[in-house]
């Protein structure tokens, strides 16, 4: 009797997270990240297509979480469907087709679905086979999607996916920004801030100057490779990564601060863990960096910023990297600012719809996702939707109609009050 009581008491029911303790199985099943399909084929079929992945689990009024599934509706577009299509493929019941590939590419890889599934291995690892399927699609000649192929070709030549010239990359840089030529810290601007959301780049550089941080921007900074990697083009992305790491190591960079969620995830996680590039460079996302400065007293907000805002968790720092608190902690320190949470937030946040190559290849799906998030932000009565990812910012700006709400980056707010 005592034994069974102990067993009962070991059950870990977590409020709003269900019965499962989601991270207890790693050693038992010896599943590794970043492997090919073969590695995962014996666990994929455990999925029973039960639909738990479709809605927030026991929270947020069980709201929908999957942009792809909610837009296309058919089960194949939800995680359960993709799990079982993967099983169908690995067990020989299905064959590669253009349509099959397009189903897997109609996904922002936001990982909201994984958060809901209570089967530990699917919860923790499903993104690995979603990515492995993209890799396989490329190997089989069905991926990436035509628009993604175009931007990749451009990136391999001009180091950005925006069809811009590499030589124009630093055009955003105003003359008043002070750089330290031999600094060990680099501000890694990223393509979106360099070419599309230049306010973010300027604001970040000004913040660093205000805080008297010795930094420099590498004159040959290139795309981090995220848009190439996320569309299954691993070899090409690895080549980009190797060049970037060499360039920064050769320059003596020891620390990178970036204002881009995608660049952060790529440098911090993809380079070492997928490509085996243990570059040893410390990587900080801007809110993390600002929070450190706030904590050690080097940063104080002297002015008020009177606005009701809501914070949108970018997938690449949120679910991909587990950063939910630092941006909020920074925002909460800002005098006059009122932070209102959307119903779906943190690990349950609804994706803005731009990631995973979706914005280039599936514009209708991408706009659907953005509009859903904008509506949710408006429901909070916030005056602005604030994020710390220039790609999210750009997506919101492109989809907000009639100035119904503003879109801002955290850096743009901080710049105004220090």
């Amino acid at each position, binding site marked *: 009797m005592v034994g069974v009581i102990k067993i009962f008491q070991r059950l870990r029911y977590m409020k709003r997270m269900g*019965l499962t303790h989601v991270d207890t199985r790693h050693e038992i099943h010896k599943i590794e990240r970043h492997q090919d399909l073969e590695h995962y084929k014996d666990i994929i079929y455990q999925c029973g297509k*039960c639909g*738990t992945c479709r*809605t927030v689990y026991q929270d947020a009024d069980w709201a929908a979480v999957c942009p792809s599934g909610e837009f296309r509706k058919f089960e194949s577009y939800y995680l359960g469907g993709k799990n079982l299509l993967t099983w169908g493929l690995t067990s020989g019941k299905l064959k590669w087709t253009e349509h099959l590939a397009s189903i897997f590419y109609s996904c922002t890889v936001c990982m909201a679905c994984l958060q809901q599934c209570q089967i530990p291995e699917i919860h923790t690892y499903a993104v690995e086979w979603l990515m492995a399927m993209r890799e396989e699609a490329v190997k089989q000649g069905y991926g990436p999607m035509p628009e993604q192929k175009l931007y990749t070709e451009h990136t391999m030549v001009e180091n950005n996916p925006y069809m811009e010239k590499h030589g124009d990359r630093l055009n955003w840089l105003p003359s008043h920004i002070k750089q330290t030529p031999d600094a060990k810290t680099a501000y890694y601007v990223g393509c979106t801030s360099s070419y599309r959301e230049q306010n973010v780049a300027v604001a970040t550089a000004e913040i660093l100057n205000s805080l008297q941080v010795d930094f420099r921007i590498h004159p040959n900074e290139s795309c981090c490779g995220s848009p190439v990697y996320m569309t299954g083009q691993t070899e090409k992305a690895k080549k980009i990564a190797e060049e970037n790491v060499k360039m920064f190591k050769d320059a003596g960079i020891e620390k990178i601060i970036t204002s881009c969620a995608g660049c952060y995830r790529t440098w911090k996680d993809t380079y070492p863990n997928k490509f085996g590039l243990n570059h040893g460079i410390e990587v900080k996302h801007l809110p993390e960096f600002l929070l450190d400065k706030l904590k050690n007293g080097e940063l104080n907000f002297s002015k008020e910023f009177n606005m009701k805002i809501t914070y949108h968790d970018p997938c690449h720092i949120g679910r991909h990297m587990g950063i939910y608190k630092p941006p909020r902690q920074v925002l909460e320190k800002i005098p006059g600012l009122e932070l209102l949470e959307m119903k779906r937030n943190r690990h349950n946040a609804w994706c803005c719809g731009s990631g995973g190559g979706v914005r280039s290849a599936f514009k209708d799906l991408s706009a659907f996702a953005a509009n859903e998030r904008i509506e949710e932000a408006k429901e909070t009565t916030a005056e602005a939707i604030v994020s710390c990812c220039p790609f999210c910012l750009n997506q919101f700006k492109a989809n907000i109609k009639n100035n119904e709400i503003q879109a801002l980056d955290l850096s743009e707010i901080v710049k105004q009050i220090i």
Partner: protein
Amino acid sequence: MIDSKIIVELENVVGKKYVSDQPEIQFLYHYDFVTAEPEGICDISIMPNSAEEVQEIVKLANKHKIPVVPWVSGINFGSIATPRKGGIVVDLRRLNRVLEVNEDDMYAVIEGGTTWADLQGYLEKNHPGLRAGITWSPPGTGIVPSCLCYGMFDLGMLGGSGAEFINGLEVVLGSGDLVKVGSCSLSNYWYGRQPLPDLAGLFIGWEGSTGIVTKAAIKLWPKMPFREDFAALGLTIDKGVPVMLKLSKAGLGICDLVIVNFGWGSSVQELNEKNIAKDAKEANMPDFVGLITTQAYTEKQHEAQCEAIKEICKEGNLRVLSAQEGAEVITPPPMQLWGCWNFSRGGGGQWVGTYCSTRDIVKFYNLAREICLKHEKIPQFYSRILFGGHYVVARTNINFNKNNPEEIKTTRALLKEIHEEVQQLGGVVMYKPPKWAVQTYKNRTLPATTELIEKIKKLLDPNNIMNPGQGIGDD
């Protein structure tokens, strides 16, 4: 293969976006993906957005004599929604709206594709004082199919089986005609199945073979301010069952009473490292676990109820744990429970389920246990006492590796053996049965009963297009 002209006709009904005959879409409808039942075949899937669209689809299917299979999530441990003879799968997921909640009469009018997550979310947001009875199936599964298949809810002690939670229905018949049954057929209220002849029975227990339910009214219940969950532990099932039956007849605000054995409990995750079911004897553990939920309106009432429950358990030599001591696992569903126990054992799960007399619980368990052990499967037993102790559901779950054809074959044989044996018990009738099991009713009913069932089926579905190859009316 269905003529492309028919696909165009269907596209004209619901829009091109919501019709597909592509293999990568159909694949998800071919299988139940949980059970050991064979795969089916879906030719076209379609997602209507209104009862009128469902009518148009069924009329077209009649015109072309094509099978129609109503579908919400497609998982039910009996593969009842797996299309057996091809045709059109009518995926009802766009019909998932909660149309009305009547707080006075305590019911919700929902569309046919509404899931537990949909309803729970709606109630939490808009009517926090009310709650639905909910199954232990995952949140993405359908409410209406569960009610129509006599599903069992966590308010089963109050309301009985899922079928008894139904107040009224709106149904597209196999002919394409639309009918309403219950008070809603005479008024705007959906408070009950009175006063005309109770026609809900034309659709309950028929496994989608007489019509497609487009709306249903489901009973709701007040959410009480006080609630406690207990786990009662005992050495053997036969020692624990009488205590649970005593509790079922004692009132005490009990809204849910569940009996599981150690095999079932140990297959739920976190009970052991690999989530593999173990037999109590092998593990040297007590076999009986009773899960008891009580609720009350006042604190004093609640304390008295909890005290009495503990006392009855103590008299029966059961050890009681409160929610704080570990029994919180039965905190209100929906939850993804079975999704956890299928893992590590190959992803497959199926049961032999029965409704039975309270007298047969222990007999059922002993029979099923013996057969499971003979086939080297750990018995996983689960029983829910319903409607104040008037009857119970009992079932034995079997896990298997769904990627292993041999194990699937063995599992099928084992399920059939258990089914045949437990049917010999006096009061045992099938619960959510797959086709091979449901047809055995014909050996047990009066010939006139069988004839009546067949006449009704023919009347409601003259061209036999509704979920053919499944259910009671078609062999």
